[in-house]
């Protein structure tokens, strides 16, 4: 696959973003709708405080980064599930999520999209080994290779407070030697690729779009701050689905007039 593509039907900017995505497997850029992102972050802080019964005024600045001082690791999963349920129930939450990444999605995926029904939330406290995602590619467990993950941090993410990804060239090498490299378990596989993975540095205010067909994951967060990130999958509406189907996992979000017209078309009765 040629990753350096120049399509004269696309603008220079579109060609640049597309080539970067193909070449690196991801792009990071500023949130398109910063006010939507700020609203989301404030919502997370408000809902967290309600959940933890924190009534006194505390500074919001580092609240999420330091949540581990107020919440035990043993309570983390229930807390996270409750957060996912509550933030997804907020009006226009998914619409705002889409707006944050819209110009990148337009270029990388297209303008007629399917979006995951629920936005996921990941909270990874320092030294917590219960919230790890071993090395995997989503396609290995039944996702369509047409999907793109939009990953939005609510805090600054760096080193082990972030996620890693195996670049496309290294992934190709892994695919060609998968049996020898994968060993007996995912930890064996990680050891094989440990010095080839790229740890992504991404600050609050930026958005990451990555190719979930590339191996990725996280490790124990060895930093002193908690990671808070959201992730959600998007794909071209009329591209092939795999195990995550339209209706039960994805839904159309930007059906255009011609498609609505076509989908509803019926030949005249003879």
């Amino acid at each position: 696959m040629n990753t350096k593509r120049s399509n004269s039907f696309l603008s220079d900017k579109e060609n640049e973003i597309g080539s970067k995505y193909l070449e690196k497997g991801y792009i990071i850029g500023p949130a398109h709708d910063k006010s939507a992102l700020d609203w989301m972050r404030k919502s997370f802080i408000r809902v967290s405080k309600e959940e933890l019964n924190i009534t006194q005024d505390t500074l919001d600045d580092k609240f999420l980064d330091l949540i581990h001082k107020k919440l035990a690791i043993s309570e983390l999963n229930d807390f996270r599930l409750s957060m996912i349920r509550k933030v997804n129930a907020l009006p226009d939450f998914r619409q705002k999520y889409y707006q944050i990444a819209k110009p990148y999605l337009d270029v990388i995926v297209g303008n007629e999209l399917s979006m995951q029904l629920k936005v996921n939330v990941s909270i990874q406290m320092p030294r917590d080994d219960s919230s790890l995602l071993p090395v995997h590619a989503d396609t290995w467990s039944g996702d369509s290779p047409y999907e793109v993950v939009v990953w939005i941090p609510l805090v600054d993410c760096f080193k082990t407070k972030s996620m890693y990804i195996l670049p496309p060239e290294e992934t190709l090498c892994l695919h060609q030697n998968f049996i020898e490299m994968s060993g007996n378990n995912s930890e064996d596989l990680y050891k094989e690729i440990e010095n080839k993975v790229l740890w992504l540095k991404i600050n609050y205010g930026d958005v990451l779009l990555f190719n979930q067909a590339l191996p990725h994951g996280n490790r124990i967060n060895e930093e002193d701050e908690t990671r808070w990130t959201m992730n959600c999958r998007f794909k071209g509406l009329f591209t092939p689905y795999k195990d995550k189907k339209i209706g039960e996992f994805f839904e159309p979000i930007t059906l255009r007039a011609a498609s609505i017209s076509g989908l509803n078309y019926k030949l005249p009765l003879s």
Partner: protein
Amino acid sequence: MKSLKGYVSSRVFMGERCPQHIQNVVLRDYCKKVDSQYVLSGVEYAMNNSFLMLQQLIYEIPKIDGIVAYSLFQFPEIQDDRLIIYQKILKRKGEIHFAVEGLKITTNSEIDRVEDIWLVRQALPYCYNPETNILVK
């Protein structure tokens, strides 16, 4: 608390099959999540294109507040037939929920969202799939 009566299938729908007891587990869990009372399910007849049980459940509204179906794809594949069913339910001041998809129709304005999913799903076999190399079915 609203009462929702379950609707499960005994036949394949849109190429999918799920054992009835698993459908009931999903329905029970869904009702818990939406804070509704789960009323034991009606099982649709196995004959193709039969929706007699669904019609029976609609008839039970307003004794029950609505129906919770395992999936929206259990409904008729013909759009006009589906629209008639939605309207019957709404006319009786009932609601229809779809557990797997987490969607519901409680007003006319919620029909489009469900129908968009139906129509795209039905169009997908006609879209290009590199695995089958089929462009048009």
